[in-house]
C-alpha cells in the first residue's frame, strides 16, 4: 500500500477550502443583474385558494414582479413528478396527484408555495411577499397516515380516493400465513418509524440565470445530482431543452437525501429568470428547510414473526402504512417498496416473507429518501423483532440471530434480493469481542451501584447499496437507469483530471477518488483532481445517494482507467520497442518490466498529445470515458452493539458505549469511512432518542426550529469503537460495498434494544425521550406493586 493509495488514511484534499472558509456554495454565487426571490407560502395545511391579490406587493418599491401558479402553468411549466412507477397489487397504477411548483387552486401543506416575489433585494422580496394577500378557504386536514386511511378522512387529492396512493405487496402471502400458522412461537409487534427532518447544514439555494441572447439557462443549485436535475427540469418540467440548460451544483453543505429532488423553488427561479430577464437567487432560511425539505421515514407497521421449536424463523408477515405527505416526491414510491420491503429478510435465512405496503397522502411535507431510505425502517423492524423474540423465548439475542444467519452465498431471499457475500457470524463475533459483551453483567452491576439502569442491545443490519442495475430497476418501474459515468483525462504534462457523475457534498470524493487514480497510475495524489457537479463539464451522471458513489461511481472511474492504461501501454510499447504485455506502470514511470527501459508518465502524456510518434492508426490524445452499470446491488452489513445508562428518577438516558463492526467491502480511505460511520451513528442515535417532526392535528408544524427539533449533539454521542470485518464484494472491480448509510440504518434498533433491556419494558417507540422512559419505568413499578 502506498501512502496515498487504497487503504491509506489520506487527509481530505477538499478540507483546506472548507476549514478556511473558502468553500464556494450556491449562496456565495453573485452574478450581474441579480434579483431575489421570496415565496408566499400557505399558513394552512389544507385550503382552497380563492384568489391572490398581488397589487399591494407589486406597487412596492424595488419589486420587479409577483408571479403566481396560473402564470407558471400557463407558460407550460409541468407538474412535479414521482419518477418511479409502483403499481398496486391489483395492477392499477399509483395515484399521483398534481403538484404545481406554485399552487393554483389548492394548498396541501403548511409551506406550500402559492406565489413568488422577485425584487431588488432579499429584504424587499420578503417584505413584499408578506404584502401578498391570499384568499384561503380552510379545509379539514389530515396528518397521520393511519388516520388518512380512515373512513371520512379529509381527501388530499381528488384522484386518490381514501388518500390511497397504492396498495402494494411482495412475497407469498399464503405460504407466509401457513408458516405462521404452524409456528412454535410468534412474536408480534407494532412499530412506528417516526418522521424526521434531514437538516443538512446548508439550506437549499438556487441562482437561476437566463441568457436572453442565447435563450440559455444556468442554474446553480444545492443538488446531489445535477444531471438528474437537468434531465427532470428539461424532460418533465419543460423549463428548457437539455442543451439550453446548464446545472451546476458547486460546494454543497450536506444532503442526506434531501437534495436529490428538484423542488418547486428551483423550477420557479428558472422560470422567473426567463419571465423577468433577471438573474434570480433564492436561499431558504432554516424555517423554510423545516417547512419544505422532503422529510424521511414515517411508517406505521405491524408485523408477526414465527419461529420453530429450535428458534429458527419460519415466516415473517409485515403490514406497513407509509405517509407520503401532500405530494409524491421524486423517488418517494420506491422507498417503502423496493428499498424497504426487499430488505425484510435482514441477515436471516427466512423461507417465507410477505409484506403489504399502503402509501397514503396527508397534509404534511412530502416524504422521500433520507439517509438509508427504507432500509432503516426495515432494519429497525427486523432487529426489534429479533431482540423481542429472544426475550420472549428466553434465549440470548446474539445467539438467536446467529442461529438464523445466512451463511452461504449467493443467497436468494423471498423478497427478490440476491446477497452476494458476507460474514454475518464474523461481524457478530467481532462486535461482541470489541464491546466486551462478556463483561456486561459486571458493568450493569456497577451502574446499579450508582443508581443507574444499564442495558445492552444488538442490531445486525444489512442494506442494499450501489444503486443499481439499470435493467433491474427499470423492470421495477424506475424512470431512469442507475449506472454512473466517468472520464479520465491525462494532460500533456501528465497531470490527471477525473470527471465523475458522482457528486460530493461532504463525502470526500475529491480525496477518495484521487487515491485510486494515484495508485493505479503511480502518480502523486496532488497531480490528480476530481471534477464534478457541472453538467457542462461532466457529460452525464446519476449523482450521489444510496451509498452508490464508491461502488458505482468509482467503478466507472476504474473502467475508464482500464482504457487509459491500455493506451498508455500501447504508446510506451511503441516508443520503447517492446511488447505491450511487458509494459508496467510503477514507481512513477512506465517501463518494460525487469529492465531499465522506461518513459516518464508525463512523457507518455506528451507523446499522446504531440502525436509525433504514435502507433499506426492510433488517435492522438489521452482521455477515456466509461459508463458502469452495476450487475447487482451491494450488501454492506454489520453488527452494532449499544449500551445505555438510564437515570430512573428522570428517565434521562445516555448512550455510554457503542461498538460497530462493519463489512463495507474494500475500504479506500479508512479515515473517511470512519467519518461516515460517525455521522451515520450520530443520526441513528438522533432518530432513536432525539429527533421527530411533530405536526398538530390541524397540520401546523410544531417542530419548526431547533428550539423544538432536537438534532444530536456531540455530547449525545459516545466515542465509537469501530471494527471492520471485510468480505470483498464480488460484483464490482474494487470490491466496494458502500458505507454512507450504515450508521443511520444500524444504530436505531441497537439503541432501542439497549433501552428496553435496561428498563425491562419492551413497549417504547422512537424517539425514546426521557419522559417516555420514565413513564415506562413508572408503569412497570405500578404493575410490580400490584402483583
Amino acid at each position, binding site marked *: 500500500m502506498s501512502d496515498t493509495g487504497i487503504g491509506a488514511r489520506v487527509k481530505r484534499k477538499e478540507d483546506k477550502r472548507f476549514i478556511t472558509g473558502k468553500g464556494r456554495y450556491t449562496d456565495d454565487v453573485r452574478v450581474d443583474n441579480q434579483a431575489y426571490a421570496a415565496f408566499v407560502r400557505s399558513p394552512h395545511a389544507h385550503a382552497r385558494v380563492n384568489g391572490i391579490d398581488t397589487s399591494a406587493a407589486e406597487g412596492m418599491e424595488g419589486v420587479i414582479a409577483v408571479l403566481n401558479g396560473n402564470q407558471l402553468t400557463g407558460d407550460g411549466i409541468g407538474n412535479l413528478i414521482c419518477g418511479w412507477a409502483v403499481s398496486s397489487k391489483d395492477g392499477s397504477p399509483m395515484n399521483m396527484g398534481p403538484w404545481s411548483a406554485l399552487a393554483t387552486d389548492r394548498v396541501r401543506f403548511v409551506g406550500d408555495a402559492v406565489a413568488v416575489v422577485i425584487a431588488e433585494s432579499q*429584504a424587499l422580496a*420578503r*417584505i413584499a411577499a*408578506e404584502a401578498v394577500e391570499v384568499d384561503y378557504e380552510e379545509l379539514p386536514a389530515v396528518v397521520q397516515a393511519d388516520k388518512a386511511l380512515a373512513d371520512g378522512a379529509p381527501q388530499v387529492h381528488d384522484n386518490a380516493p381514501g388518500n390511497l396512493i397504492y396498495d402494494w405487496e411482495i412475497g407469498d402471502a399464503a405460504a407466509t400465513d401457513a408458516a405462521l400458522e404452524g409456528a412454535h412461537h410468534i412474536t408480534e409487534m407494532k412499530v412506528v418509524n417516526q418522521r424526521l427532518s434531514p437538516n443538512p447544514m446548508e439550506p437549499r439555494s438556487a441562482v437561476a440565470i437566463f441568457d436572453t441572447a442565447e435563450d440559455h439557462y444556468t442554474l446553480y443549485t444545492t443538488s446531489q445530482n445535477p444531471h438528474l436535475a437537468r434531465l427532470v427540469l428539461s424532460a418533465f418540467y419543460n423549463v428548457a431543452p437539455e442543451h439550453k440548460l446548464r446545472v451546476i451544483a458547486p460546494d454543497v453543505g450536506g444532503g442526506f437525501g434531501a437534495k436529490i429532488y428538484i423542488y418547486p423553488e428551483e423550477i420557479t427561479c428558472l422560470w422567473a429568470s426567463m419571465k423577468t430577464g433577471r438573474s434570480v437567487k433564492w436561499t431558504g432560511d432554516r*424555517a423554510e428547510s423545516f417547512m419544505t425539505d422532503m422529510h424521511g421515514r414515517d411508517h406505521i407497521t405491524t408485523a408477526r414473526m414465527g419461529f420453530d421449536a429450535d428458534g429458527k424463523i419460519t415466516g415473517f408477515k409485515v403490514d406497513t402504512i407509509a405517509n407520503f405527505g401532500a405530494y409524491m416526491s421524486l423517488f418517494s414510491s420506491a422507498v417503502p417498496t423496493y428499498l424497504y420491503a426487499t430488505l425484510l429478510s435482514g441477515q436471516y435465512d427466512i423461507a417465507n416473507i410477505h409484506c403489504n405496503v399502503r402509501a397514503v397522502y396527508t397534509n404534511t411535507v412530502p416524504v422521500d429518501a433520507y439517509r438509508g431510505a427504507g432500509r432503516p425502517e426495515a432494519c429497525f423492524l427486523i432487529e426489534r423483532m429479533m431482540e423481542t423474540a429472544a426475550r420472549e423465548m428466553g434465549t440470548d439475542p446474539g445467539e438467536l440471530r446467529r442461529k438464523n444467519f445466512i451463511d452461504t452465498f449467493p443467497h436468494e431471499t423471498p423478497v427478490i434480493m440476491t446477497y452476494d457475500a458476507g460474514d454475518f457470524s464474523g461481524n457478530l463475533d467481532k462486535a461482541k469481542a470489541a464491546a466486551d459483551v462478556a463483561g456486561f453483567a459486571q458493568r450493569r452491576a456497577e451502574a446499579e451501584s450508582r443508581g443507574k439502569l444499564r442495558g445492552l442491545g444488538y442490531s445486525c443490519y444489512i442494506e442494499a447499496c450501489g444503486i443499481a442495475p439499470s435493467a433491474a430497476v427499470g423492470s421495477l418501474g424506475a424512470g431512469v437507469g442507475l449506472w454512473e459515468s466517468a472520464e479520465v483525462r491525462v494532460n500533456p504534462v501528465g497531470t490527471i483530471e477525473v470527471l465523475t457523475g458522482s457528486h460530493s457534498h461532504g463525502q470526500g470524493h475529491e480525496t477518495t477518488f484521487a487515491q485510486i487514480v494515484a495508485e493505479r497510475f503511480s502518480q502523486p495524489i496532488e497531480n490528480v483532481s476530481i471534477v464534478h457537479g457541472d453538467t457542462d463539464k461532466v457529460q452525464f451522471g446519476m449523482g450521489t445517494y444510496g451509498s452508490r458513489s464508491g461502488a458505482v461511481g468509482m467503478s466507472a472511474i476504474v473502467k475508464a482507467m482500464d482504457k487509459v492504461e491500455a493506451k498508455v501501454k500501447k504508446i510506451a510499447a511503441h516508443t520503447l520497442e517492446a511488447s505491450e504485455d511487458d509494459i508496467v506502470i510503477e514507481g512513477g514511470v512506465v517501463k518494460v518490466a525487469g529492465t531499465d527501459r522506461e518513459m516518464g508518465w508525463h512523457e507518455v502524456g506528451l507523446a499522446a498529445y504531440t502525436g509525433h510518434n504514435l502507433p499506426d492508426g492510433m488517435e492522438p490524445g489521452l482521455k477515456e470515458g466509461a459508463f458502469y452499470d452495476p450487475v447487482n446491488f451491494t450488501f454492506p452489513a454489520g453488527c452494532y452493539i449499544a449500551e445505555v445508562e438510564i437515570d430512573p*428518577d*428522570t428517565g*434521562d438516558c445516555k448512550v455510554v458505549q457503542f461498538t460497530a463492526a462493519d463489512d463495507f467491502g474494500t475500504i479506500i480511505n479508512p479515515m473517511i469511512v470512519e467519518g461516515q460511520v460517525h455521522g451515520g451513528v450520530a443520526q441513528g442515535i438522533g432518530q432513536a432518542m*432525539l429527533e421527530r417532526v*411533530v405536526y398538530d392535528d390541524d397540520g401546523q408544524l*410544531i*417542530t419548526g*426550529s*431547533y*428550539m*423544538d*427539533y*432536537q438534532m444530536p449533539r456531540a455530547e449525545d454521542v459516545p466515542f465509537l469503537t469501530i471494527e471492520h470485518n471485510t468480505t470483498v464484494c464480488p460484483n464490482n472491480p474494487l470490491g466496494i460495498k458502500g458505507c454512507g448509510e450504515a450508521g443511520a440504518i444500524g444504530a436505531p434498533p441497537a439503541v432501542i434494544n439497549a433501552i428496553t433491556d435496561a428498563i425491562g419494558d419492551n413497549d417504547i417507540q422512537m424517539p425514546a*425521550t*426521557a*419522559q417516555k422512559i*420514565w*413513564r415506562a419505568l413508572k408503569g412497570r413499578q405500578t404493575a410490580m406493586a400490584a402483583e
Partner: protein
Amino acid sequence: MYDFDFVTPASLAEAAAALEDPEAMALGGGQTLIPTLRARLAMPSKLVSLAGLAEIRGICEDDDGRLCIGGATTHGAIARDAAERFSGLAGLAQRIGDPAVRNRGTLGGSVANNDPAACYPAAILATGATVVTHRREIAAGDFFQGMFTTALDEGEIVTEVRFPVPRRSAYQKFEQPASRFALVGVFVAEMADGAVGVGVTGAAEEGGFRWEAAEAALAARFDPAALEGLSHPAEGLISDIHGDAAYRAHLIGVMTRRAVAAAA
C-alpha cells in the same frame, strides 16, 4: 429581519431617553431579541443597545451584604465572578446556553424578557432578590407577572438585581432536550435567617414560582429526606411535546431533592 435604527447610548440617561420612543426596544445581549427579529416576529423601529453601558455592568456588594449584579452583566461574567460569593447563582449562570450565549446574554435582558423557561427567575424568587430599574426597586414577588410579562413599564431598564446571599444554595436543571432551556429548573436557597426559598422555572404556564410546601418542609429540616412524601401538583403546569404536566410535576420533586443535596 426588518429595517430598524440602532442606537448606542453613552449613558444610562441617554438610553432611558432613547427608550421614551414607544416604537423603540431595549437590546441587551440579544440572545432572544435577535433571533426574534430574524424570524420576523418583532418590528421595532429602533433598537437601543444597553450592552455598552459600563454603569450597569459588573458585580459588587452593598452595605447589607447583598450581591448587586448590573443588568448588562453577562451570564459568563456571573459564572466567573460570583463563584466565590454565591456559588449557587454562578452555577446557574454557568449552565445557561453555550459559551457564545453566555458571553453575550445578560442578566437584565433575561429578567426583563421573563421567558417561562429562563433560569434566573428561580434564583431571584428563591432568594427574594430585588430587581432595580432606573426608576425604582421591585421585589421579586411583584416583578414576575406571568409568561413574558413583568412589572416593568414601557422603556423601563433593569439596571441591577440585588441578591441576598444564601447560607447555601444550588440550582438543578432538567433541560428541554432541543432548546436546552429548563424543562424544569429548581433553585433552592437556605437564607441567613434559616428561611428556605425554592424557586421553580420552566414548569408553569405562568412562569417562575415558589414551591411553598417544599420551603416549609426544608425550613424545618434542610435535607432531601424532608421532602419525602411531598409532591407538586400537576395543575397549572405546562404540557407540550417535550413533557406533560405530570412529568414536569415529578421533575420538580426530583430537581428539588437534588438541589438540596447539592447545596453548598
